[in-house]
């Protein structure tokens, strides 16, 4: 208490210099992160609320009002069957979240451990995993979906699974590449020298240092999953009518491109916004996790 005032002031200076800002205050200052978070939260909000309520029931067909322009009754207009587009988008967000999260989830939860295993073990283990993933990679999501549909019948679950399986080798490859690069760094060697096992090092050093790569890849795969689901729905292999899907709306809009362009614009914008939100969130998370950027933002 009786230290001179200048010394105390100096202490404070040192404190502010060395102590990084708290993660929350850094997060709130990160524009990209905040924007991304807002978009993703909105998406989740829509999906959850739409389970109980939507402006119009999505299965209601109103032929006299088909292809209506935006109006007070139908904010975003109606489609070729007179269904309210705002309601379709609103309810379609469920589908988007399900497809994106589960397909990316499958890819991450299987692909990342495989990639890490390949990178830690090297030798024949790596060979086997990587050749197996090349093999899986050779089948596009569409082909494996058709294959699965032929066996189990069409449906949302099958299409999500097919896209998820397609994601596994993508994540396995990215993970192995990034992990191999980190295994050449001195700090993994130093960790080995400290007697840590390969698994401890994988968990404590390799995974955290490659998280940014995975986050970026996950947001890309999320976008790809939404589009792949659209393609599958178009072929009748994905979401079954009347359950709305942004991807299918986009595909249905193709035939009316010139009579009712808004049919393509709205779902397209919805998909673009969702993907943008996820990318911003992913980039933001990456920045926030890196302590070296703590004082720069």
């Amino acid at each position, binding site marked *: 208490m009786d230290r001179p005032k200048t010394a105390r002031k100096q202490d404070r200076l040192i404190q502010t210099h*060395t*102590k990084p800002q708290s993660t929350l205050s850094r997060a709130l200052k990160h524009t990209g992160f905040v924007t991304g978070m807002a978009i993703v939260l909105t998406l989740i909000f829509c999906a959850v609320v739409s389970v109980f309520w939507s402006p119009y029931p999505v299965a209601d067909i109103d032929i006299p009002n088909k292809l209506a322009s935006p109006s007070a009754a139908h904010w975003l207009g109606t489609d070729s069957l007179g269904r309210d587009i705002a309601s379709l988008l609103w309810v379609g967000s469920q589908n988007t979240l399900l497809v994106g999260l589960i397909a990316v989830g499958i890819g991450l939860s299987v692909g990342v451990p495989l990639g890490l295993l390949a990178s830690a073990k090297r030798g024949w283990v790596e060979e086997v995993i990587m050749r197996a993933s090349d093999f899986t990679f050779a089948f596009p999501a569409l082909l494996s979906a058709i294959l699965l549909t032929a066996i189990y019948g069409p449906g949302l679950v099958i299409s999500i699974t097919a896209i998820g399986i397609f994601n596994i080798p993508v994540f396995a490859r990215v993970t192995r590449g990034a992990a191999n690069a980190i295994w050449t760094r001195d*700090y993994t*060697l130093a960790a080995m020298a400290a*007697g*840590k*096992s390969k698994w401890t090092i994988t968990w404590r050093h390799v995974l*955290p240092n490659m998280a940014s790569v995975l986050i970026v890849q996950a947001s890309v795969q999320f976008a790809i999953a939404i589009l792949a689901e659209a393609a599958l729905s178009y072929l009748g292999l994905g979401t079954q009518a009347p359950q709305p899907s942004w991807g299918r709306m986009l595909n249905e809009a193709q035939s009316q491109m010139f009579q009712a362009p808004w049919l393509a614009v709205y779902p397209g914008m919805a998909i673009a916004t969702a993907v943008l939100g996820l990318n911003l969130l992913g980039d933001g998370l990456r920045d926030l996790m890196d*302590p*070296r950027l703590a004082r720069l933002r």
Partner: protein
Amino acid sequence: MTTTPLLSIQNLCVSLETAQGQVEALRGLSFDMQSGEKMGLIGESGCGKSLTALAIMGLLPMRSKVTGSIKLNGTELIGMRDENMCRIRGARMGMIFQEPMTALNPLQTIWQQIAEPLQLHQGMSKSATQLRVLELLERVQLSRAKERLMAYPHQLSGGQRQRVMIAMALACQPDILIADEPTTALDVTVQKEVLNLISQLVSEDGMGLLLISHDLGLMRDQVDRVMVMYGGSVVESAPTQNLFQHRRHPYTQGLFAARPQLGLKRGTRLTTIPGQVPDLLNWPTACAFADRCAHVEAACRDALPPLSQASISSDLANSNHSDTSHWVRCIKWQSIESQP
């Protein structure tokens, strides 16, 4: 010597797989190290200094072939299972690396990095670990240690990071510390400080030290015995003082002559060792230094000279260390006299 040496390396050979084929990087390296002994390993780049360190730690690249024997307190390390090796690394052998800038994980705090080996090897509780980490940071003289516990590596300078590395290596009080060019990446002003610190801590704990460097000057005050390596094997080994007075191998003489010295006249060219290290793929079976040696004769190219005793009675008088033997791998050492 009747006691088991702390570290005993016998006829260690390491060959690495490269794009051009198998390369013999270590050829029959042998030496013993007593507990508490400080040894220096010196030689030019590519002579196998760092590889020796990695071989002892069992951290050689996966596709390398190792033969020979490395014993730590009588336990054979070569061919040991990885799980068992993990229990020895960090706990009984510590290592300090050349580049403090990259040898720390950028995403972990200093505290996490030092605490992990302690919790791993000694199963310390959190509060005990905290005390121990602070004590370690104070021992390595990291200023404002308490505040820096939660600092990330990028917030520290090179010298400070190397101190953290030393603290990590010493955390579990190993029997032997291997320092692979610990000061090469540091500022000249900090080099001496860090070396003295290592040397002091090693003496305090009674550890064995294997100091690897290419800088003769740094060795002089820090180690009891210097081994000179050339082309993957030891060509000369002697107590430090002895080596600085009587250099017996022409390569060692070349190394000493090539040192830049104060007081040289402006414009004087520094002495170099003529020629180049032979190609590792076509390594000569005889003396590897023959092509660069000024004293070479036909016999040098016939067979690999053995490592022979080269002690003279005067050596024994002015050394206070127990092991005064001077070894040299040259058949002509008696006729080559060096100027001290």
